């Protein structure tokens, strides 16, 4: 039995068996990291957080262009705006800081998390809007604009801090984790592709002119500023875009489905340092 288990782990590690069996989250995490380490031997664990600009994935040219863009990043202005919004009191005189641990500073690495009181997954954007509603303000629109700016500012105060997501041994937490994992590995849409097809099994390859990034490290730079969007966007905005590419109907931003996916991906990025916001082409 033990031999078989060992063999299975080895096959997963070399990428022969897709990781679909109901394994404990810690085992998934080990296998996930091992997969990318083997696929990109020249890319360090932290380096993956630079997406398709990572050393060992991007060409030297592409990498240099991105480094130039990060010198005077186009997200500076929205980031300043995010800080201003974050610090401006609501009509009742309270601020966002009153809703978060440590006044909202340096906490992004704990999001999303499983909340045992509501037995649900809480995202940073979700709690930004909860805070507004609690203080008599209208919720912001998801995905871009002010919410992305505030979230980006909050995340920027966590730069350099390692993602630290827990999946407690409780049925609802595990169910959310499994739901996100399932979304990640399941084929979907008319074009029948999974997230893993593009960002795992074919990461580092070109799909048409696009270099596919590795999922390991995907969340750390979000919200990202994407030139194609001309603005900041949250992870759920990106999920919707990637669902649409395969002609699948996207879920709503902050739906349980995307919250679960975000939870899974952040768990898979445990130990990698927040570098949000990041610039993307």
């Amino acid at each position: 039995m033990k031999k078989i288990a060992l063999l299975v782990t080895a096959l997963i590690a070399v990428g022969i068996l897709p990781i679909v069996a109901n394994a404990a989250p810690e085992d998934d995490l080990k296998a996930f990291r091992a997969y990318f380490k083997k696929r990109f031997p020249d890319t360090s664990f932290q380096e993956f957080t630079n997406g398709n600009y990572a050393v060992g994935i991007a060409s030297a040219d592409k990498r240099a262009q991105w480094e130039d863009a990060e010198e005077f990043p186009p997200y500076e202005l929205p980031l300043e705006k995010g800080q201003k919004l974050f610090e401006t009191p609501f009509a009742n005189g309270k601020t966002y800081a009153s809703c978060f641990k440590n006044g909202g500073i340096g906490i992004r690495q704990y999001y999303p998390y499983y909340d045992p009181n509501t037995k649900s997954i809480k995202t940073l954007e979700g709690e930004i809007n909860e805070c507004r509603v609690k203080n008599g303000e209208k919720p912001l629109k998801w995905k871009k604009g002010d919410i992305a700016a505030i979230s980006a500012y909050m995340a920027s105060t966590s730069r350099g801090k390692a993602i630290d997501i827990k999946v407690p041994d409780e049925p609802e937490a595990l169910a959310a984790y499994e739901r996100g994992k399932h979304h990640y590995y399941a084929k979907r849409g008319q074009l029948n592709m999974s997230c893993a097809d593009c960002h795992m099994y074919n990461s580092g390859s070109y799909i048409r002119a696009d270099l596919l990034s590795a999922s390991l490290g995907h969340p750390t730079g979000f919200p990202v500023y994407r030139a194609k969007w001309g603005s900041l966007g949250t992870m759920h905005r990106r999920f919707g875009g990637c669902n649409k590419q395969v002609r699948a109907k996207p879920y709503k931003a902050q739906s349980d489905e995307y919250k679960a996916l975000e939870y899974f991906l952040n768990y898979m990025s445990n130990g990698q340092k927040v570098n949000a916001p990041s610039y993307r082409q």
Partner: protein
Amino acid sequence: MRNPAKLVSSAASVIAVLGTLALAPVAVSAEESSVIDEGKKLAFDRKKGNCLACHQIAGGDMAGNIGPPLIAMKARFPDKAKLREQIYDARIANPNTIMIPFGPHQVLSESEIDKVVEYIYSL
């Protein structure tokens, strides 16, 4: 597909082994060549085959490299029915493939697939 170069060279050696026999030019009728042209359009169209997303094809720009370059197809698929099967539903050969199941998912119609097959077979 991590090493298209290797595949190209092995395909090239297959041609070398088969010699000119398999690739002897066959007269192509005008009707056939218009089918091939239509197949090419469908293969290159981003909303249809979009084969260039994953395959290098002679004459196509900015091709991806997820799948092997599509060259010397007669040498690689002596049986045209097998080639049609691969394009119709790549899952038959590889259940976990990223290649789109063009037929079963109705991304291309039966007659569109026939045209694409003729085009790919001409490569």
